[in-house]
C-alpha cells in the first residue's frame, strides 16, 4: 500500500488553477521527486500536502487514513513533516533548542509547567543526534538567527528529521546554498534513503537525478509524467515542456 496517495487534488486562486487535478502516490521507502518549471505549483502542492493550505477538492490519504481535513499540526503529529523553501526557524532560540522543540513535539505532553525543559536529557540527546546527522553539532549552543544561510538550511533539515517523520516533504532544501553546502545536504538526503520516505521538490536537476527513485513532472499544476529518472529524461513531452532541447 502507498504511504501517501493524492487523489484529484485541486487549488485555484480566482481563475488561476495552481493545482489542477493532481493525483500521485508515494511508496514506502522511496525518494519521490517533483520537478517542474517556476510557477508550476510545486510549493502550493507541498503546502496542500502538509496541511498549511486547504485544498478546494480532492483527497489526501496518508498511511491509510484520510487526512484531507486535518491541519498542519495534526498531520505533523502523524509523521508528515515538512521543510520550507524559505528558511523557517526560531531565530531567537539556540540551534539545539530549535531541534529539541521538534523532538518535544513527538515525545509526551507539553502541558508541563514546572520541570526545566533545558535539562531534559532525552530531548537533548535526540536533538544532538539530528544535528550530528546534518553536520551541525558544533553549532548547538549558537543562536539560530546568527547561522549562515547554508547552516540554516542544514538546521531546517535537522528540525524536520527530529520530528521522526514517516514522510518528509522537502521544499527545495538546496535553495540558495553554495556548491559545497549543497553537496553536504545531498549527502544527508541520500543517507535517508530506505529509512525515511521522502517527497522532494528541487530545482537542482543534478541532485534530483542523483537522488530520486521516481520523478513526477508538474507543469501548470498538472502532473504530465511520472516514472523512473531514466524514463523521465527520455520522455519527449517532458523535454518539450521543461527540460529544454539540450537536456
Amino acid at each position, binding site marked *: 500500500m502507498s504511504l501517501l496517495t493524492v487523489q484529484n487534488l485541486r487549488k485555484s486562486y480566482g481563475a488561476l488553477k495552481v493545482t489542477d487535478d493532481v493525483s500521485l502516490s508515494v511508496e514506502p521507502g522511496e525518494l519521490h521527486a517533483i520537478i517542474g518549471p517556476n510557477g508550476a505549483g510545486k510549493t502550493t502542492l507541498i503546502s496542500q500536502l*502538509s496541511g*498549511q493550505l486547504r485544498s478546494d477538492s480532492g483527497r489526501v490519504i496518508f498511511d491509510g487514513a484520510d487526512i484531507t481535513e486535518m*491541519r*498542519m*499540526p*495534526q498531520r*505533523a*503529529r502523524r509523521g508528515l*513533516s*515538512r521543510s*520550507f523553501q524559505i528558511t*523557517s*526557524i*526560531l*531565530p*531567537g*532560540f539556540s540551534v539545539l*533548542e530549535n531541534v529539541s*522543540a*521538534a523532538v*518535544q*513535539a*513527538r515525545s509526551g*505532553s*507539553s*502541558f*508541563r*509547567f*514546572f*520541570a*526545566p*525543559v*533545558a535539562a*531534559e536529557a532525552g530531548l537533548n540527546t535526540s536533538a544532538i543526534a539530528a544535528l550530528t546527522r546534518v553536520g551541525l553539532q558544533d553549532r548547538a549552543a549558537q543562536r539560530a538567527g546568527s547561522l549562515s544561510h547554508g547552516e540554516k538550511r542544514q538546521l531546517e533539515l535537522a*528540525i524536520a528529521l*527530529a*520530528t521522526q517523520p514517516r514522510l518528509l516533504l522537502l521544499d527545495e532544501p538546496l535553495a540558495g546554498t553554495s556548491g559545497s553546502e549543497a553537496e553536504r545536504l545531498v549527502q544527508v538526503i541520500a543517507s535517508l534513503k530506505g529509512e525515511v520516505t521522502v517527497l522532494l521538490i528541487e530545482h537542482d536537476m543534478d541532485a534530483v537525478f542523483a537522488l530520486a527513485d521516481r520523478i513526477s513532472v508538474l507543469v501548470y499544476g498538472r502532473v504530465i509524467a511520472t516514472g523512473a529518472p531514466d524514463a523521465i529524461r527520455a520522455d519527449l513531452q517532458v523535454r518539450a515542456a521543461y527540460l529544454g532541447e539540450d537536456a
Partner: protein
Amino acid sequence: MNPRIRNIAALVVFGSFAILPLLAQVLGDSFLIVVATRILAFAIAALALDLILGYGGMVSFGHAAYLGLGAYSVAMLSRAGITDLGLHLLGGIAMATPFALITGAISLRTRGVYFIMITLAFAQMAYFFFVSLSAYGGDDGVTLAARSTLLGQPLLENDTTLFYATLALLIAAYLLALRITGSRFGRVLTGTRENPLRMQAIGFSPFPYQLTAYVISGCIASVAGVMLANQTEFVSPALMNWHRSGELIVMVVLGGIGNLIGAVGGAVIALLLEEWLSRMSEHWPLFFGLFLVIVVLASRDGISGLIRRIGGGK
C-alpha cells in the same frame, strides 16, 4: 536575559524591598510602606502581563480588568462574611479564570493590533459592568469594612504585615513564572511568539498553549487586585479603567519585556516617578512621557537592556 544577571537583579530588587520597613522606621516615614505596597501589587500585575506579552507575544490592553476582578472578589466575599485572604485570592482566581477563558478564546482568533483592540473592548465591558453594579456603589465604588484576615486574625490591618504579605506573593508569582517560562510549556509559548508557522509544522497547535498562558496571566493579575483592594481598603471600577491597562503595558515595556524581573523593575520605576513627579508638577505625565521616550530610544529592551549593557552580558 543572562540568568546570572537576572538572578542578581532579582536579589537586589526583592532584597531592597525586604529591608524597606527598617528604612521607613529609621526615617519615621510610615507613608513609604503604603507606597511600597502599592508598587508591589502593581509589580505582580506587570509580571503577569510580561508572561503573555514578553513570552507569548500577546499584547493585552485589558489586563486592568483582572485587577478589578481581584479587588471586587475582596468586596463581595467580605460582604458575604468571608474575610480570609486565601479565600479572597481564590475568589479572584475563580472570577479571573472564566473571564480569561472566554475573552481569551475569542481574542486569540485575532492577531496584532486586533488582539490589542479586542482585549481592550472586553476590559471595557467588565469596567462598565461594575460601573452599573449599584449594589457595590456603581461608579463610586465601595469602601471595605476591613482588610482581609489572615489565619482568622486581622493581621493585615498592620501596614507592615500587608507589605510583607504582598512581597511574599510577588516573589511567589515571580518564581512560578520563572518555572513556567523555563518549562516545556514555556518553550512552546516562546516558540510560537518566535515563529508560529514553524511550531505548527513540527506539530504544535498554538491556541491551547496561548489560551492557557492567557488564563494563568489573568489569575496572577487578579492576585494583584486583591492586594490593591486591601491596601486602599476601597474598591471601585476606576481600578479597571483602560488607563490602568495602558500603565501596565508601560511598566512592562519600560522595564524590558520577556525577562520577568524587568517588569517588576518597570513597575517600581514607573510608580516612583509618578509619585515623585506628581509632587513637583501637575503636568507630571508630560515629563513621564519624555522619560519613557528617552528610555525606549536609548535601549530596545528598556531598563533591563541598559543594565545588560552596563553589566556586559548579552
